């Protein structure tokens, strides 16, 4: 049967509105972003510093994260990919680099964009720094950082485990 023979598909848009909670453990991190400061949290059990403080807990120790720790703003690329796929709602020009960045003082990398250099020049171990949007556009979000750009410092040796975490 072809589509002309009958109703084969029914279009039924579904919309549901949610109230998303960041959770109290993320408060200092989000307030930090409003002030242009990168705040992570230290696990009271294993002492590692999480940025962002994902759900406010250390997944290894199942403990609520403790003290605030200011990290960055500079960091090192641990691994990256060059994106050539246009995504729904994508606002960035292709190709662009999505990188895992280990901020100085943090123990876990986070994903962000790399701009202000050719995609082909991005390297594991490259030193980068954040470029903030205009303060008028800020909210409690990592989107306050437009992207990261190379600092020009010498690369860090990420060892054979580069890209592992």
């Amino acid at each position: 049967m072809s589509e002309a023979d009958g109703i084969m598909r029914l279009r039924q848009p579904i919309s549901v509105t949610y109230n998303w909670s960041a959770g109290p453990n993320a408060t200092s991190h989000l307030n930090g972003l409003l002030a242009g400061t990168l705040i992570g949290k230290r696990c009271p059990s294993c002492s590692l510093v999480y940025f962002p403080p994902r759900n406010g807990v250390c997944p290894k120790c199942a403990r609520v994260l403790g003290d605030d720790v200011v990290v960055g703003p500079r960091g090192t690329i641990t691994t990256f990919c060059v994106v050539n796929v246009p995504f729904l709602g994508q606002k960035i020009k292709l190709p662009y680099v999505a990188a895992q960045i280990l901020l100085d003082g943090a123990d876990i990398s986070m994903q962000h964009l790399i701009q202000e250099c050719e995609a082909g020049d991005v390297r594991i171990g490259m030193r980068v720094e954040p470029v903030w949007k205009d303060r008028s556009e800020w909210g409690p979000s990592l989107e306050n950082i437009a992207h990261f750009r190379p600092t020009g410092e010498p690369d860090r040796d990420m060892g054979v485990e580069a890209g592992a975490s």
Partner: protein
Amino acid sequence: MARRDVAIVATAQRPNQVGSTLTSVELILPVINEVIEKLGIERQKIGFWCHGSCDYMSGQPFSFVAAVDAIGAWPPIIESHVEGDGALALYEAWVKIQTGECDVALVFSNGKTTSGPIDRILNLQADPYMVTPLWPGFDSLSALQARACLDSNVLTEADMAEVAARSYRDALNNPIAYAKENVTAEQLLARPYVTAPLRAHDCGVPVDGANAVVLAAGDAARGLAERPAWIRGIDHRIDTQRLGARSMTESFSTAVAAHKAGVGDDRIDVAELHAPYTHQEILLRRAMNLGEGTHINPSGGALVSNPAMAAGLARFAEAAESVFSGSADRVLAHCTSGPMLQQNLVCVMEGE
């Protein structure tokens, strides 16, 4: 193969609330840590973890993945997840223990019922071609069922109000219950309809909650609890969902599951029934032949706090606690899923 003796040995629940700003991980973490601390066991002693939750309630695909952060899954653990109530996760854990692959299992569930329009979200469980596009809502589907029961004289609005009044009064003694009120059926009947023939008190109050239960086999259970709640029978069954294809005035799947679980073999002291609507409690009692000797929902039940996807496991926690305390010897825990009592899980537990 002979069944292994398996019991609930500890439970933890957080107070049910409305409009929680906690993330699901923050909801879950305290109950998991509490139940482990109660037992005083090493996390590594838990041979299997099982989680119940629903992506559509959090508005995020793979929402359960974050929950792994709350359980200390390092070194890696043996773990699974059901898209549904934690009571079904408990069933999976019971199956796992029956295979002999583990002796101790931790089951948990979370429901942030107030982060989205739960009536609309649960509507998405219906037939996507013929029913969902009409957006009847979960309350309305339940109201259709209540109307059918009233019109066929299976129950009266006064019977329904009695269920609510008893639940709201019992909830006064339950510190984690959300809605509680010293009220009579007459007073409730004077209140307005919200979705006729349902009044506000006929519909379970959507709340945010989380809970955790630990199961253990044989000697492990005896070593972990003074009076474990031994699972004597557990079974679940499903009905057709089609509105016109099944009786709305009885619950066939509950009757089958109850029979398989051995409900009728002896007196039941306490039955914790997962009935999000008053008329559904009456249908469940009838399907399982629960009589005057059984105290129904001493916790207040899902009517006073209904954290969807956690409300069924909460019934297990409440029923098991009544065995732990010695206030009951033979108890029943029940969980329902889907519109109008479509799927039902029944479990009988006993103290030794």
